[in-house]
């Protein structure tokens, strides 16, 4: 019954909130109540106690429970943010649907085929949020969000297709020795790399995430990265767990996966360094961090896995903090729209500080918990090969350089008090900002919650055993880690 409630409750509330979508107050409150109820239900679930339903196995392990609770916590914060920051008309129902799909995927991780299909469906639903316009909007949807949605649509489906084909081959998998035929294990891992790479925005399949971050509302990006992409990593770990043969028969494939993670880190950091943009640069850094997590998982070692899983939690918190800060930094500050803002920290000290904190958390600066996770992954890389440490080191340095450049170009510059010539209003220009020219006040409550999130990360960083104990106990049960070592 609990399982059914966790699966269907968000869908039912989403239907209700769709009817209330034009009234932000009641719909956000409804969503917050739904998330809280869902969190209570998840806490009530018996851990590692599988249940059979319609021929499927539903279960949750401590890691799945922790990830689900973190996603719900992030969702709760995201809904609180929407009280202060404009969001799309359908954001609440669509995000509740995403939560429903995410919860179902986590519960059905033992059924890879169903989980892959659920991930495709959740991606398709997310498209509606990408092209969403605020309530009562008087402008047309722009071309860029439409292009972004189309790219995402195709990639989500092709990613699901690649994953599905990998599972079909696994189902009919035959050991190499028995009949002398070529092993399809290389093809399986290739399909998994493509499918997972598209899903998790790994180089060279990362461009969709940059587009989503640039052209959709910040909270939509937060939901896509935390709820959908994080579930993807969990899915990859569970795939290795259920089919350890992928790891054992693919030593070279796992090395390719590790190298791909390192290359993702370097390439995305270079892109971020080249374009100091308030939305693009942090998103490139997030892509780079995804590559870092991939290195840990592909190392198939206990320290690498522990580091990656701990980093997954840091990643989610960092994404939340960074995008809330971006949403606050992009608010009207009394200057014309065309002005290039270089002094955002002085204009918005709280949001600016939050942004810097989020970037440092992503980078792995002490005392944040990401420092511990980064050290663990470095340790795993060092045990696998010195080349990987060099890759990770270069990636981290480039990420630091990208952050430094962004801060120098956008946050720490001199105040622009010189009068700027305004652009004339052109006919057929639909993005004319009619916003008030006064500088708005920073929502103190929101920034306090943002700093609480950073504080939690710092506390976990100082006492990593708070999370690591659970993570390590889960890793002890992962067969592919023992097999690989």
């Amino acid at each position, binding site marked *: 019954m609990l399982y059914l409630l966790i699966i269907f409750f968000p869908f039912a509330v989403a239907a209700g909130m769709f009817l209330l979508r034009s009234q932000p107050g009641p719909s956000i409150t409804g969503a917050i109540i739904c998330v809280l109820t869902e969190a209570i239900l998840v806490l009530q679930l018996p851990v590692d106690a599988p249940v059979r339903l*319609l*021929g*499927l196995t539903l279960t949750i392990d401590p890691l799945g429970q922790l990830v689900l609770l973190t996603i719900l916590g992030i969702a709760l914060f995201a809904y609180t943010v929407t009280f202060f920051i404009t969001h799309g008309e359908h954001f609440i129902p669509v995000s509740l649907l995403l939560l429903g799909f995410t919860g179902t995927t986590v519960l059905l991780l033992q*059924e890879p*085929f*169903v989980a892959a*299909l*659920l991930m*495709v*469906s959740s991606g*398709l*639903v997310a*498209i*509606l949020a990408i*092209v969403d316009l605020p309530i*009562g*909007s*008087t*402008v*047309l*949807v722009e*071309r860029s969000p*439409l*292009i972004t*949605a*189309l790219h995402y*649509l*195709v990639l989500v*489906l*092709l990613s*699901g*297709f690649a994953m*599905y084909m990998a599972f*079909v*081959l696994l*189902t*009919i998998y035959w050991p190499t020795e028995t009949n002398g035929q070529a092993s399809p294990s290389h093809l399986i891992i290739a399909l998994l790399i493509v499918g997972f790479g598209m899903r998790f925005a790994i180089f060279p399949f990362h461009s969709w995430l940059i587009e989503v971050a640039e052209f959709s509302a910040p909270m939509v990006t937060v939901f896509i990265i935390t709820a959908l992409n994080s579930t993807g990593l969990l899915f990859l770990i569970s795939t290795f767990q259920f089919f350890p043969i992928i790891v054992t028969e693919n030593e070279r494939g796992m090395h390719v996966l590790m190298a791909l993670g390192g290359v993702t880190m370097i390439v995305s950091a270079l892109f971020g360094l080249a374009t100091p943009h308030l939305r693009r640069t942090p998103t490139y850094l997030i892509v780079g961090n995804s590559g870092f997590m991939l290195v840990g998982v592909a190392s198939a070692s206990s320290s690498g896995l522990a580091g990656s899983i701990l980093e997954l939690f840091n990643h989610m918190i960092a994404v939340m903090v960074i995008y809330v800060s971006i949403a606050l930094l992009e608010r009207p500050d009394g200057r014309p729209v065309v002005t290039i803002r270089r002094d955002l920290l002085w204009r918005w000290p709280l949001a600016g500080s939050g942004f810097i904190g989020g970037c440092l958390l992503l980078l792995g600066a002490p005392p944040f918990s990401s420092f511990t996770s980064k050290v663990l992954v470095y340790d795993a890389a060092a045990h696998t090969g010195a080349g990987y440490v060099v890759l990770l080191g270069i990636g981290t340095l480039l990420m630091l350089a990208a952050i430094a450049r962004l801060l120098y170009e956008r946050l720490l510059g001199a105040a622009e008090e010189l009068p700027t010539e305004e652009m004339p209003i052109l*006919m*057929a*220009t*639909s993005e*004319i900002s009619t916003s008030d020219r006064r500088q708005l006040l920073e929502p103190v409550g929101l920034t306090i919650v943002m700093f609480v999130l950073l504080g939690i990360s710092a506390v976990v960083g100082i006492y990593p055993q708070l999370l690591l104990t659970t993570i390590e106990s889960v890793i002890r049960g992962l067969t592919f880690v023992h097999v690989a070592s």
Partner: protein
Amino acid sequence: MAEFFATQWPLMGIAASAGIILLAQQWRSTLIGLLLNYVFVAAFLAQQQFITPDVSVFGYMVSTTVLVKIIAGLSAVLILGVTALTFSREEGTEELDEFSLAELRRAARRAQRQKIIAPLRFTDFVVPLWALILAAIASFILPRLYPIGSESVDFAWYWLTLTGIFTIVTANDVLKLGLGLLLCVSSIDLLYTAIASTIQVFPLAMLGLTTIVLSLSVSYLSALMYGRLKTLELNELYKR
């Protein structure tokens, strides 16, 4: 030869209908192709008896699963068809400001001009035709190199996958791109039904749901794009 046609007609139907989707340029033809494709896939599954028949329809014994697949497919075609039929209807324009209304008028004029300037030409079919030939060659060779199911099953799913991917690659409008994606989902559906040792209800329901959610997403995006640009042409979308 007559025996071949008598036994392999669902397979030929799948090949022809997917070919129509890849080649045809008009949405009416491609949607009819999709409808026929779902019908022929269902006929193929019923003929191969992957699932034990349990329901009698017009004197023929078929499986409930096959019926569910037809219903999911019909729903997808209906969703896309209704969206395509209601494109010309102006909705929600009363909320737009004068700049957006001017933009809409400009887009409508541009789309009208485009229709007059670029009528349907034979050259539009060259790339899809070569793609179709390539898909045909690959669908005959791949089942021999990488067999997964029986020969006919392998031909069917390879054909659907390849025509789906080539439709996505050669598509010049959003609706056709969506049809290519639907063909890929259809190939997954067929392969699962054909090779799964025990057919489970939930995965089949999920496949049906994916088909319907995908067609809803494509319809929504098509409607948004038409509402914005008065055309579904992808090259208009990418114009700056």
